[in-house]
């Protein structure tokens, strides 16, 4: 009986062991190795691996119907064997969700994309350095020399106003125009986002005017009783469109243009210097589908991917991709406007103090 059960055990265990060994050797590559593959067979290895994984998960702050759906659709057309999925939320939610998953050892997400996602995640030690061959054609300040992040799109921030409530001549032309008492109670901004919205506006003012002068200016601005909205800057623009507020600060300047093209009564107003920032993507150290994730990252930065991002009305990070003429008035280089670029590091370093100022002056 002992012998029989032994034989039975061997019959079961040996093939299982062999299978495990084979699959182990096939998937021996760690996320780190996969993320830094080089050489001519890189793409073949990634595609083979991605076929086994069959899935990829992107968490992104891009607007769902405008951007994420077309991006995922184009990606699936190129790699029909990858079931690409996404979850859209604001940056803070994205980060906390990804951090929670990492802590729970139940990571669903491969790539997190958005403005301001990199620093907090790097600090928590959940990101994986990667290298993408395509980055050699990108500007130096659009990717991390250590390989932790790469820019996916650019954003310029400013003012949006409702054209039924405010005339173009009346709308503020400088930052100081914002202090005019006639705007009291008519302004709104996104109070809980990382990119655009209150905190970034405050960081910009402080880094542009200097800490002391900046805070004094912000104290004056707080007299305007700006409405603190909890949604994304996109939603804040919607509230301006439907007349809830006359103007909003810290919005993506391309959003009002997109809505105006559909007939909504809203227009952008860049204020000089125009605040610029790059949204970035990071790779999770515990990414469950690293091969497919690398393909998706490649795709996002490829000419095709950047064109989809452009067609989704974002400003592509790749300078080689043409932007639509309609967006010229808000792109500093084309509209001849002075620009101030805030990097992920700048924003993160100033963050705590800016949030304190926001709390002190702008929370009712």
């Amino acid at each position, binding site marked *: 009986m002992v012998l029989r059960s032994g034989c039975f055990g061997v019959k079961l265990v040996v093939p299982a062991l062999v299978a495990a060994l084979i699959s182990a050797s096939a998937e021996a590559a760690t996320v780190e190795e996969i993320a830094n593959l080089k050489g001519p067979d890189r793409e073949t290895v990634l595609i083979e691996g991605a076929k086994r994984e069959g899935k990829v*998960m992107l*968490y992104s702050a891009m*607007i*769902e*119907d405008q951007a994420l759906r077309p991006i995922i659709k184009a990606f699936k057309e190129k790699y029909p064997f990858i079931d690409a*999925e996404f*979850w*859209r*939320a*604001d940056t*803070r*939610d994205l*980060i*906390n*969700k990804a*951090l*929670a*998953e*990492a*802590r*729970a*050892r*139940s990571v*669903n*997400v491969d790539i997190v994309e958005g403005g301001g996602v990199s620093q*907090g995640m790097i*600090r*928590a*030690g*959940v990101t994986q350095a990667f290298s993408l061959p395509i980055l050699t054609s990108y500007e130096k300040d659009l990717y991390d020399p250590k390989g932790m992040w790469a820019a996916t799109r650019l954003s310029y921030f400013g003012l949006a106003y409702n054209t039924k409530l405010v005339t173009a001549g009346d709308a503020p032309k400088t930052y100081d125009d914002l202090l005019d008492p006639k705007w009291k109670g008519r302004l709104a901004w996104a*109070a*809980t986002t*990382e990119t655009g919205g209150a905190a970034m506006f405050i960081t910009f003012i402080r880094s542009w005017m200097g800490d002391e002068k900046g805070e004094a200016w912000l104290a004056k601005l707080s007299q305007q009783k700006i*409405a*603190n*909205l*909890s*949604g*994304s800057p*996109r*939603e804040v623009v*919607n509230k301006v*469109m*439907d*007349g*809830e*507020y006359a103007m909003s600060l810290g919005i993506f300047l391309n959003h009002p243009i997109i809505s105006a093209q*559909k007939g*909504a*009564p809203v227009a952008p107003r860049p204020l000089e210097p125009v605040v610029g920032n790059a949204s970035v993507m990071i790779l999770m150290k515990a990414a469950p589908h690293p091969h497919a994730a690398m393909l998706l990252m490649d795709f996002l930065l490829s000419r095709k991917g950047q064109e989809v991002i452009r067609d989704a009305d974002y400003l592509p990070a790749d300078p080689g991709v043409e932007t639509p003429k309609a967006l010229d008035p808000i792109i500093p280089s084309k509209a001849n406007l002075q620009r101030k670029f805030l990097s992920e590091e700048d924003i993160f370093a100033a963050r705590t103090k800016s949030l304190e100022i926001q709390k002190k002056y702008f*929370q*009712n």
Partner: protein
Amino acid sequence: MTDAAANAALPLATAQAKFRLPANPLGPILAAIVAVLVLPPLYYIIKTSLYTTEFDGSFGDFTFDNYRELVASDALLRHLFNSVQFAVGSAIIAISLGAALAWTVERTDAPMRQSMLLVSIVSLGVPHVLYTSAWLLILGKSGPVNAALMASGLAASPVVNPNGMGGMILIEGMIWTPLGFLLLSSVFRTSDGSFEEAAMMCGAGVATTFRRITLGLATPALLALFLLVSIRAFEAFDIPALVGSAGGVSVLSTDIFNSIRKDIPSNFGQAGAFAIVLMIVVVALLALHRRLLRNAERFQTITGKGYRPRIVKLGAFRPVATGFMLLCVVVLLVLPIAMIVTTSLLPFYDGVSREMFGRMTTANYGLVAHRASFQSAIVNTLMMGASTATFVCLLTAGSAWLAVRKLSGGWLLDQLTTVPLIFPAIVLSVAFLQIFLNMPFPIYGTLISLVIATTVQYLPYGMRFCSAGALQIHRELEEAASSAGASRMQIFVRVILPLIMPAIATSWLFVLLLSVRAVAMPILLSGPNSQVVAVALFDLWTNGQITELAALGVLWTAFMMAIGLLFYRASRRYGLSVQ
């Protein structure tokens, strides 16, 4: 063989004054399961409040700083005051409207009064997030109310702004009105009319009788319900998050949410300290509620003799009463649903106008029907609701019987199943988030984790329904079964269970209805593979996709109203009780 021994002992046992059942593992097993479910959240929320949070969100060092910071900042007192104001305000609306409706329906001869019950129960099917969005659109600056005011020349610019304390109170009050009505109906229905007749005979007029007798007798119940609604509003998360945040009004429950979701990384310690404060207040209020209920016995009017409630003949006032009921139905249900249906047909929302009729399209419905994430959200929600309701019923049916009969483990089960009452939903959510994040195996973000947490939340509700069912069963049935040699498990399965099945079914439907419409629990616990409808609606609102929200909301509400209808039929037969 043991059975035979038990049989032999039985005549003796039944001869004793105290009826005894043979010992059985049912009680201890249930108690162990319930304890494992309800005690860890308590431990974790206390621990959370006493530790710093590391960069990756894990527990850091032991500290009292979370409390120190709370006491040092002026936010605590201001937000506590906001919470109180919100709770009391919405309870006043819900109870006064609910009482007026309940009296009209139960104690007058106003026409069409019976349909009020149906409307109230059906309205339970509307998710809070959807109901709130509807009112934010109606009262918003570009909504119909402001448009009408401006068109009529009463205002030059939009004057009504729902994003503030006023809007929060109004919407929360309206959400609780149907439940206030349902609970107060039974109060007015079960009071003896002979007291009122006596007063009339002594020469008191209708008004005096109403004030001194009808209202006087109902006062303890009114107070208890008032407190109950206040507690629920005090704990509420969804309305303050959707309505108050945009107007800069914070309450304790939104502070907890913001500490978890809007700080990087989540400030668990801060959330924990806020949570403990919130729970202390809730415990105090619940104790007060319990006292009120105890005193309410002094006002019982139904005794052994027959009774019937007195029906007031309204005469010429009958149309007025019907008009009042119709107005309530329109404002509480028809208006918000009409707003959502309208919005669901628009390509983009920019207020209500004549031009919008030309733009109407069903494109949003197509989008919703084809979105895989919405389809999976609907399936997930139904699975979550149905399994939660099933687990709650499985755990509470036996517990309720043991507790009602004061059998071994009964007292403990009664205590344990009430523990979740002291947890506001958002606090329970944080507690379970911490538990799931600290488990050695991956469970965070799964549907099963959501079911576990929601089951704990609704244990007290299930207990309420099943106890009511078990109380109605006379002991002699069990004694008979016992004499025939049945074990306790057999008695429970073959005698009790079939008899309390109607109560269980009502409880099942009620838990299903409530658990699928709440957002506080899944908003922190659900992951990308366990999205539920309430969270999808919440995300759509915060992402500004109002037209899609409306389309998804219409489809979901239609479906849940059908379930509400089922519940209506069940509750008419077996009664309704809500804690």
